[in-house]
């Protein structure tokens, strides 16, 4: 039984709103198919599925905002057929898998019906074993309200336990005598004490290191336990936990531009704040003479129909991607207190959105693309970024990012690294400047390239080598 969960589409994403289901229960899906559209703080993202199979049940209705890691749909093995007529996705508040915010000690746990109000079709009774039925009876769980995850739509013990209100789990062995209410075995943890959410040791250590309050983190682990991934997805500042999703509107409220901009601003703020708090940046810069590159580009474009012309930015991006491949310590991620090099160059490109804000989706394997392919990828990416139609894989995995402020007329940009990346490249305006060479001064096209890099991973010498590598590459534009 597979699971399709709300993906993390960036280091700072806490939750997403389901805008659209592209599949229905019973649909066959293949790894890589786009199955849903999710609205993050930045834009609407088409989300791919990572396993092949048959869509079982859609557990989250369109319009709901749910935390990262929430189960969105079940995935049956390839070739499976649905045992029950597919139920429409419920038009209900968050499904049971999403732990409600920790109840204050004074609050009583909500009755199960409220915790799992679902409009599911009644399940055929033969899909529940006697043991499970007995368990459901004892825990006061209405079987019609339980989402089955077992083979062929079977309701498992775990499904019932998940749907139960927070009480001690049943003892593992059924008592032989018909005991009216067996004592919960002491080994089984009861509901956590208020203020002490269940969490793994590693999650607690990470939370302490990052200054995250575990009480603000929604747990995606067993029985709502907070695991490391929940902590890394949480903003480091003690931001208030996301409010539970309000009951869904009839249709997903199309977010207004102002609304989206405000939330994008918040997301950028959280990411940049974390970057400047956690990443010890160092900066290096280099003026690069572009006479050869500009001449080559002018000649190339003069022969091309207008639709095939290249932008100078493409040469800069290609050179940056090749330099990232040559200096792998600048291409990867700082995770769990150490550097993890990436085995591809997925080049993030900062795209400013008209009206404010920016996104930095990735061009995959940019170091392997020819200039025409890179230009096509860039046009496609910029177009979709501005239309708000990026894909989840593009948002989640840039290994190093480039910002090109040349169009804004400045000579130099000192970038702020996007965590968990460890470097960011900046290019200013390509402009004619006096350039001294061989005892002569003359006007030449020049660009200032900068690198902001994470001093935990590299030192200035490597950063300098990165920029001199770009310089060398741009002096042989025909080889790019």
């Amino acid at each position, binding site marked *: 039984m597979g699971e399709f969960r709300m993906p993390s589409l960036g280091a700072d994403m806490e939750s997403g709103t389901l805008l659209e289901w592209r599949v229905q229960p019973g649909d066959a899906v293949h790894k890589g198919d786009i199955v849903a559209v999710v609205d993050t703080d930045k834009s609407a993202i088409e989300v791919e599925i990572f396993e092949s199979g048959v869509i079982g049940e859609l557990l989250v209705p369109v319009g709901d905002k749910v935390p990262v890691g929430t189960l969105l749909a079940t995935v049956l093995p390839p070739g499976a057929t649905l045992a029950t007529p597919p139920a429409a996705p419920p038009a209900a508040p968050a499904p049971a898998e999403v732990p409600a915010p920790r109840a204050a000690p004074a609050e009583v746990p909500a009755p199960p019906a409220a915790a799992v109000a679902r409009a599911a079709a009644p399940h055929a009774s033969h899909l529940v074993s006697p043991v499970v039925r007995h368990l459901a009876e004892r825990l006061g769980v209405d079987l019609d309200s339980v989402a089955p*995850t*077992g083979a062929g739509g079977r309701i*498992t013990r775990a*499904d019932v336990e998940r749907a139960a209100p927070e009480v001690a789990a049943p003892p593992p062995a059924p008592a032989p005598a018909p005991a009216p209410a067996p004592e919960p075995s002491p080994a089984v943890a009861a509901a956590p004490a208020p203020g002490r959410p269940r969490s793994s040791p590693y999650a607690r250590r990470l939370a302490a290191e990052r200054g995250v309050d575990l009480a603000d983190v929604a747990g995606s682990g067993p029985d709502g336990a907070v695991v*490391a991934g929940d902590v890394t997805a949480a903003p480091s500042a003690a931001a208030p936990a996301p409010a539970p999703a309000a009951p869904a509107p009839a249709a997903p409220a199309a977010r207004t531009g102002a609304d989206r901009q405000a939330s994008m601003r918040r997301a950028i703020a959280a990411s940049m704040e974390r970057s400047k708090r956690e990443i010890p940046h160092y900066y290096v810069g280099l003026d690069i003479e572009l006479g050869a590159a500009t001449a080559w580009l002018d000649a190339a474009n003069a022969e091309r129909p207008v639709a095939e012309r290249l932008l100078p930015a493409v040469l800069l991006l290609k050179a940056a991607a090749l330099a990232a491949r040559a200096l792998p310590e600048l291409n990867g991620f700082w995770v769990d207190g150490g550097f993890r090099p990436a085995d591809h160059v997925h080049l993030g490109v900062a795209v400013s959105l008209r009206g404010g804000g920016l996104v930095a989706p990735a061009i995959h394997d940019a170091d392997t693309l020819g200039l025409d392919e890179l230009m096509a990828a860039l046009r496609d990416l910029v177009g979709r970024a501005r239309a708000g139609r990026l894909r989840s894989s593009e948002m989640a995995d840039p290994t190093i990012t480039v910002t090109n402020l040349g169009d804004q007329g400045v000579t130099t940009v000192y970038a702020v690294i996007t965590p968990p990346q460890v470097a960011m490249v900046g290019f200013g305006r390509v402009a004619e400047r006096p350039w001294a060479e061989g005892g002569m001064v003359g006007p030449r096209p020049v660009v200032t390239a900068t690198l902001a890099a994470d001093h935990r991973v590299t030192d200035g010498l490597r950063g300098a080598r990165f920029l001199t590598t770009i310089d060398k590459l741009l002096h042989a534009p025909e080889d790019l």
Partner: protein
Amino acid sequence: MTVTYREALRDALRDALVRDPRVFLMGEDVGRYGGCFAVSMGLYEEFGPERVRDTPLSESAFVGAGIGAALGGLRPIVEVMTVNFSLLALDQILNNAATLLHMSGGQLNVPLVIRMTTGGGRQLAAQHSHSLEGWYAHIPGLRAVAPATLEDARGMLWTALEDPDPVLLFEHGGLYNLEGELAPDAGPVDIDRAAVRRAGTDLTVITYGGMLPKVMAAAEQLAGERISAEVVDLRTLRPLDDATFVGSVTRTHRALVVDEGWRSVGMSAEIAARVTEGAFYDLDAPVERLCTTEVPLPHPKHLEDAAIPQVDDVVAAARALVQGGPGDG
């Protein structure tokens, strides 16, 4: 060159017999018959009855004789047919071999190597199929090793013979026909360290012996599901190389122990405890264990397969551990 695990063990025996005149092999049917599992086939003809000795059916007697020979300056290799039968020699192994160095105030080393077949999966039923190596790994004064690859089958014996103290070498019966490439110049290997057989990032699967090929197959299958499993082969069960498997768990944050032995009070319990002691603040999930069902191993194939962990069981356990959900309902 392509060899089987059985041939690699035989090459190791031949090599030891050639290298050191003090080395000899003894056990039930190791000589004229070529060994119950055909490991010593041909060695009797090659080295003669002095160096390859058939013994009476008395484990206590011939293991005791091996201990005496070791005390007397020889380097005996004693073959015990299965770990189940080694219980007949447990008194000799524990009360003599493992304790003489201590009780003699350091005067008497026992440089003895005992080979025995362990494990199930071949329909040999409950008196020939158990995995009791964890019992021996419990005993101070012994070293216990479990070759799970061709290199280790070829290389562990000589290193064990060089150890001044008793070493038990557990050969998994299900591996004898394992076939693969072995370098022509393969030779002795260390018996101190565990080995990372596959690198991964999502969880560490800790195993040894006959379970290694199943775990490797499971890891391959998990990779197709985008679950990256690191596989640690213990190689040596006593003394345990904590540093390698604890270090791996500190990187992956999750541990699954796969042991063909029984779960309660066994090898897997010790490993789980050490992971928790050494990597507590790096654990993102409880340590999971996958072991053989606690029954005397059945003879019928379908029941035996159901009792022993299989590839699909490893995949399911790893998946549940990584996805944080329930196992299989």
